[in-house]
């Protein structure tokens, strides 16, 4: 394939790609995202292809390895087009049956179909699944539909037309105006208006300017950026080029976590084929616009998600944030004007250009336009990646799409925004999700992680978990974050170990507020959010730890005590043999007792007891 030299040639190529597609009447999409891949989805693809070959169906059926479908809970996922039959938990050995039954006999393989969680009814296709019904996919549009390794599949789905449109029909100002009017806000965390950011960057003159894609997704529990890069890398490549055109930059850089090998591979591949097709490089689509992209690897530092830290890391230094101003738009990578957006933000751009600002603005809420991708995780039935219009309520997300809480337990809280966010509770369930509402509730959008907690989760322990993370990831530059997060963590540890006092609770709150008020960057400023929000919503739970020395969710080990019910104990000695500390005394066939002074509260005895004689409280 030579370089595409004009918009017309691109359109022609799309036409050809569409014609190629209709050759086959059945497309089998197999998820090749990290989750499904780790469960042998590659093998499924191979087996399916082999079966097709064995049955001489190559002309009718095509197997496509796609990016993530989002429904990671029930992977590996295999989807049959055109009827959207959705098979879950498929194993490599199911390939034969799928081909014989579904393709040859025209019968769906019922045992592999998804069942509605409440009614237990078989759901024939993805269109009828609650998980997908309320979703609206813009950023994830192509994920799970196209083969991310084939640029022509992307072109088939209108790929690179937005770029072509910008380069041939629109001025740089037009492009910026569309993005501004669309109301798109940065999906990386703080929600800064993207168009405005571009406009500011466009104002600075320099010999070189940079467009940087922040793919240093570090929120534990968020994996949308990885999924986009794995499932639709060209959308990011195209958007970066559009941004380059709009702000007058000729160089692009993707800063990506080294821990994402598959995403790196696919992105690299996408960049190379874009170059080959003349969609990156010099004289793109026959115009005077030059733009190319390089990849830079992160090296494991959460703080590098902050844009100034990211830039320092790209420059080969310690990823420490610096105070703004100057903003990267003025002085960024090697002092040059630099525009940084995250992966999901970019993924929205081509669609906005193609469908117009009005269309995008019509989705979502007034101040938060469009959709947002969330990574659902934790004690929820349907763990996975979803995309919903802004303004969808937490209840819809957790109960309708997410299928409610695992094992029929009670919903307790949901942490949005990862370690920077806060815990939202029952009373917040009907709040429409958007940037401002979440902040008003003491949490934040963050990159879109949503960790659901059930009644077994101890909130001080959850706060402690997040503080362990932020303490570990603090760069150490400013005092409040460097020392403050450590002190917060120590206070939480004392509380969870039953050594806390009321003064500690007071100190915890005060210090949290000071850190929020004074830390240098977003990491530090938001680090206390998990504490402040749980203190606010679950003060009683903290109090129980401090005054009663009890953990109501029975999860703080140091606060538990184990007891043997003498009536039920048969004296089988199993528990005393398993006790690592010799804390259980008693003679054979006589009731045993736990020496609480020696007990290390490991729970081994309770696990071993066959008679249910051991309990804890």
């Amino acid at each position, binding site marked *: 394939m030579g370089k595409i030299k004009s918009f017309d040639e691109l359109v022609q190529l799309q036409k050809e790609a569409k014609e190629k597609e209709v050759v086959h009447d059945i497309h089998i999409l197999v998820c090749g995202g*990290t989750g499904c891949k780790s469960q042998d989805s590659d093998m499924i693809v191979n087996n399916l292809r082999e079966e097709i070959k064995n049955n001489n169906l190559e002309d009718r059926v095509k197997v496509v390895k796609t990016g993530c479908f989002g429904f*990671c809970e029930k992977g590996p996922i295999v989807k049959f087009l055109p009827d959207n039959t959705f098979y879950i938990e498929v194993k490599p050995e199911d390939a034969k049956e799928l081909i014989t039954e579904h393709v040859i006999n025209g019968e769906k393989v019922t045992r592999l179909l998804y069942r509605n969680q409440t009614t237990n009814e078989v759901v024939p296709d993805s269109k009828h699944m609650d998980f997908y019904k309320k979703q609206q996919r813009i950023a994830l549009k192509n994920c799970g539909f196209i083969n991310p390794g084939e640029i022509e599949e992307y072109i088939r789905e209108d790929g690179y037309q937005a770029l072509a449109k910008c380069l041939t029909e629109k001025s740089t100002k037009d492009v910026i105006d569309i993005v501004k009017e669309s109301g798109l806000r940065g999906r990386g965390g703080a929600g800064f208006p993207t168009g405005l950011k571009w406009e500011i960057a466009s104002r600075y003159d320099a010999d070189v300017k940079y467009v940087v894609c922040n793919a240093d997704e570090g929120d*534990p529990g968020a994996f949308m950026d990885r999924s986009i890069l794995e499932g639709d890398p060209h959308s990011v490549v195209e958007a970066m080029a559009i941004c380059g055109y709009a702000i007058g930059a000729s160089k692009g850089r993707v800063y990506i976590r080294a821990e994402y090998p598959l995403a790196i591979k696919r992105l690299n591949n996408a960049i190379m084929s874009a170059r080959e097709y003349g969609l990156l490089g010099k004289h793109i689509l026959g115009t005077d616009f030059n733009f190319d992209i390089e990849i830079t690897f992160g090296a494991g530092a959460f703080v590098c998600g902050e844009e100034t830290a990211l830039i320092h890391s790209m420059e080969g230094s310690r990823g420490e944030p610096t105070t703004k101003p100057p903003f990267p738009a003025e002085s960024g990578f090697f002092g040059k004007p630099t525009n940084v957006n995250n992966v999901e933000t970019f993924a929205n751009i081509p669609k906005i250009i193609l469908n117009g600002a009005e269309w995008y603005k019509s989705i979502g809420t007034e101040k938060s336009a469009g959709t947002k991708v969330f990574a659902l*995780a*934790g004690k929820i039935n349907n763990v996975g990646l979803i995309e919903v219009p802004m303004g969808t309520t937490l209840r819809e997300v957790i109960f309708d799409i997410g299928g409610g809480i695992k094992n029929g337990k009670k919903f307790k809280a949901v942490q949005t925004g990862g370690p920077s966010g806060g815990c939202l509770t029952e009373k917040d369930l009907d709040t429409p999700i958007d940037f401002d509402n979440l902040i008003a509730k003491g949490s934040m959008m963050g990159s879109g992680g949503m960790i659901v907690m059930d009644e077994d989760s101890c909130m001080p322990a959850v706060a402690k978990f997040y503080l362990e993370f932020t303490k570990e990831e603090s760069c150490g530059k400013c005092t409040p974050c460097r020392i403050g997060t450590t002190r917060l963590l120590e206070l939480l540890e004392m509380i969870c170990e039953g050594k806390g006092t009321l003064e500690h609770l007071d100190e915890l709150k005060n210090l949290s507020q000071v850190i929020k008020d004074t830390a240098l960057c977003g990491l530090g400023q938001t680090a206390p959010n998990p504490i402040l929000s749980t203190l606010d919503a679950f003060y009683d739970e903290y109090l129980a730890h401090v005054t009663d020395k009890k953990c109501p969710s029975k999860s703080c080990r140091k606060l538990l005590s184990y007891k043997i019910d003498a009536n039920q104990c048969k004296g089988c000695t199993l528990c005393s043999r398993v006790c690592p500390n010799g804390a259980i005394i008693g003679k054979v066939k006589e009731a045993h007792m736990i020496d609480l002074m020696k007990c290390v509260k490991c729970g081994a005895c309770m696990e071993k007891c066959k008679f249910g004689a051991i309990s804890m409280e």
Partner: protein
Amino acid sequence: MEETELAKEKYEQLEKFIDSLPEKEGELIKVLHKAQEIFGYLPKEVQHFVAKKLGVPAAKVYGVVTFYSFFNMEPKGEHTISVCMGTACYVRGAETVLEEFKSQLGIECNQTTKDGKFTLDALRCVGACGLAPVVMVDSKVYGRVTKEMVKDIIAEYEG
């Protein structure tokens, strides 16, 4: 003797890589990634070599190496077992799994077994939250790991 030959070859490989860079400014982290790929870890001598080749102070190189968790100054075991301690994995019991690995291997996090076989790591989210809790051995992902599976996972790499 063989060992020094090997080291020499490695240094040459690294030197070649550095010399191939069109621009040296700002490439420290890229070079360190490469160096760790070649040597397996970043001992002081390798860092000093990188410093000299790139013309940056050794102190800066050390500052960078100690900042990023991806870089190690100690050699790693033959296999690296990484237990994801991301939130999704944590709420689904990753801690228990990690504890089990610790007790079975007899080492703490960031340590290597005496026979040089395994290094144990706690990892931040690998983005496979659907499979929580997740364990990675080298680049292979194990999903929905339970305490009971730990023994089998280790056995796969022994012998």
